[in-house]
C-alpha cells in the first residue's frame, strides 16, 4: 500500500519535519463569529467562562483551545465561536468577499467556510451555499442557524451543472462577483486530525475525484462575472488534484492565476509532476505543508475571470459588458439542461 505522504517527499523541502508534523495531533481551534461578536469580546467571554485559549498569531479571530472541544463553553452556546481548523480559514480570506456582493460557495457543506464568508461580508449581500449532498446540507443549515447567518441561500445541486434557474435565472440574478471552490479531494492534508486518511488513500480515488474537481471549478468560473475571482482550494498535496486542475481550467475557460497574499508561510505551486508539466503561472498557487506553520495541509489558488481583474483596467465594473462573454452560450446551455 502506498503511503500518500511518501508520495510527496520530493516536493517538500524538509521531509523529516514534514513527517514529524504529520504525526502530531492538531490543537482544537475556533473562529470567532463576527456576525455576533468581536474577537475582543469573545476572548473576554472565554476568560469569564474559565476556558484557556491562545490566539493564533496570524489572525486575531482564530483561537487555539489547548483543553479541547469548543462545544462545551458558553461563548460557543451563544453562537460566538465555531470550531474550524486554522488552514480551513485561509480560502475565505483569499477570496476576500465584500459586503453587498454576490458570492458562491460551490461545495459548501458542512459550512465552516460558508459561515466565514458570510461573516466577512458582514452578513450583507447574497451568499449562495451549494452542496450536492442533502445530508451534509443539513449540517450546513444547522451551523448557519447557530451562527445567525441571514444572507445565505442554500441550494442542493451538482455544482458541475450548477443552474441559476432556482435563483430566478442567470438574468436577472446576475453572475457571481466571487466564487469559492473548496473541492472534494483525497484529503491527506487532514492527516493530523484524521490519521485514517493515510490508510484509506488510493490512486484510483485520486483519478476519480479529479474529474469532479475540474467540473466544479469550470462551472464556478462560468458562473462568475468577468473581473470577478474564483478561489480553488483543497486539503490534498496531490498535484493531480491541484495544479493539474488549475492547468485544465486555464486551457478551457477565460481565466488566469493571480497573486494572492496569505498570512501564513507557503510554498509555490509545482509545474512538473510525474512527467506532466503545467502552465508556469500555477506557481502563483499556495501550498501549505503541516511543518511550515504547525497546521494541517492545504492548497489554495486565486483565479481572475476574464481578461482583467477589478482595478487593473479602467474604472468600470465588468458586470454588464461581461454578459457578452464567449462562454455565455455554454453556461446557458447547461442552465437549460
Amino acid at each position, binding site marked *: 500500500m502506498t503511503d500518500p505522504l511518501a508520495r510527496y517527499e520530493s516536493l517538500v523541502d524538509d521531509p523529516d519535519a514534514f513527517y514529524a508534523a504529520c504525526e502530531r495531533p492538531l490543537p482544537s481551534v475556533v473562529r470567532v463569529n463576527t*456576525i*455576533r*461578536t468581536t474577537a475582543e*469580546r*469573545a476572548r*473576554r*467571554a472565554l476568560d*469569564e*467562562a*474559565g476556558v484557556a485559549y491562545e490566539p493564533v498569531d496570524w489572525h486575531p479571530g482564530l483561537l487555539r483551545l489547548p483543553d479541547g472541544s469548543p*462545544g*462545551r*463553553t*458558553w*461563548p*460557543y*452556546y*451563544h*453562537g460566538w465561536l465555531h470550531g474550524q481548523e486554522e488552514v480551513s480559514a485561509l480560502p475565505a480570506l483569499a477570496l476576500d468577499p465584500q459586503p453587498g456582493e454576490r458570492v458562491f460557495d460551490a461545495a459548501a457543506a458542512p459550512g465552516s467556510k460558508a459561515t466565514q464568508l458570510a461573516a466577512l461580508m458582514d*452578513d*450583507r*449581500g*447574497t*451568499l449562495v451555499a451549494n452542496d450536492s449532498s*442533502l445530508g451534509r*446540507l*443539513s449540517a450546513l*443549515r*444547522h451551523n*448557519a*442557524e*447557530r451562527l*445567525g*447567518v*441571514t*444572507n*445565505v*441561500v*442554500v*441550494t*442542493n445541486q451538482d455544482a458541475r451543472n450548477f443552474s441559476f434557474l*432556482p*435563483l*430566478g*435565472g442567470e438574468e*436577472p*440574478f446576475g453572475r457571481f462577483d466571487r466564487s469559492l471552490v473548496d473541492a472534494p479531494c483525497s484529503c491527506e492534508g487532514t492527516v493530523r486530525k484524521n490519521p485514517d486518511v493515510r490508510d484509506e488513500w488510493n490512486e484510483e480515488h485520486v483519478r476519480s475525484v479529479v474529474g469532479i474537481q475540474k467540473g466544479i471549478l469550470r462551472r464556478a468560473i462560468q458562473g462568475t462575472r468577468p473581473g470577478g475571482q474564483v478561489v480553488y482550494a483543497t486539503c490534498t498535496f496531490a498535484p493531480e488534484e491541484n495544479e493539474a486542475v488549475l492547468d485544465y481550467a486555464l486551457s478551457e475557460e477565460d481565466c488566469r492565476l493571480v497573486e494572492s497574499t496569505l498570512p501564513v508561510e507557503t510554498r509555490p505551486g509545482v509545474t512538473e509532476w510525474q512527467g506532466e508539466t503545467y502552465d508556469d503561472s500555477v506557481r502563483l498557487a499556495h501550498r501549505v505543508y503541516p511543518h511550515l506553520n504547525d497546521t494541517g495541509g492545504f492548497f489554495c489558488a486565486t483565479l481572475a475571470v476574464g481578461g482583467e481583474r477589478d482595478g487593473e483596467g479602467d474604472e468600470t465594473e465588468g458586470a454588464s459588458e461581461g454578459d457578452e462573454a464567449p462562454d455565455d452560450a455554454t453556461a446557458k446551455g447547461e442552465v437549460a439542461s
Partner: protein
Amino acid sequence: MTDDGPDADGAEGTDDGPDADGAEGTDDGPDADGSDTDPTPTNDGQVFDRLPETAADRVVPGRPTRAEVVDWFDDRFGIGPSVFEGYSFWEKGAGKLWAFAGDLPVDQVDVEGVGLTVLRTRQEHWKPTTSAALRFGEHATRNTIALTPEEATTFARGEDQPIERWDGDWGYLIAVQELAGGPVPLGVGLYLYGELRSVVPKGSREDLEPLASR
C-alpha cells in the same frame, strides 16, 4: 394576559433539516392541492415565497405580510423596524418564516434555505425561533428576562424552571444572561403560571457550568 396555547415542547428541534418542514405542517392554511379551477393562489409548502409588503399586496390567503412581521417584533420585543431594514421575509411550509438579508430577483424560489428561520405564524400565538432570539435579541427592549448564571444553566439544558419574580406579559420571552460586559441572548422561553419553559431545540442544548457570579 394570555392563558395558554403556544406549543412549549421542543418542536423546534426538528427544524434544522432542510426537509423537515413538511412534517410540521400541523396548521395548514388553505389546501395546497387547490384544484385548477380555483383561482385563489394557495401556499405551496415546498418552495419559498416572499411575503407581501402589506395586506393590500396579499394574494395568498392567510400569508402574513412583511409589515405584520416587522410590527410583531416591534410590539412584542421592541425590536424596531430599522433592525429589519433591507430584509425580506419568506414563507416555506405553513407559516414558517425566514428572514433574508440578500437579494433575490423573484418572489418564489425552490431552494433549501433563504436566510434564517425567525418566526412561526399561522397559529394563534406567533412563536419566535431560537435563531431569531440569538441573532436579533440584542435589540430587544421588552419581554426579555435576565437570568442568573444558575438559571441560565438550567435554561441552556432545555429545562423548565419556576421563576416567580417576572411580573410582565406571559408568553414568549427572550432569555438573556450577562456575559463579557453585556446581556447576551440565550434563546426563547415560554413564561406561563410562574414557570419559564426553555424551548431551546434539542440539538442546541448544552450542559454547562454556571458562569461565576461577578
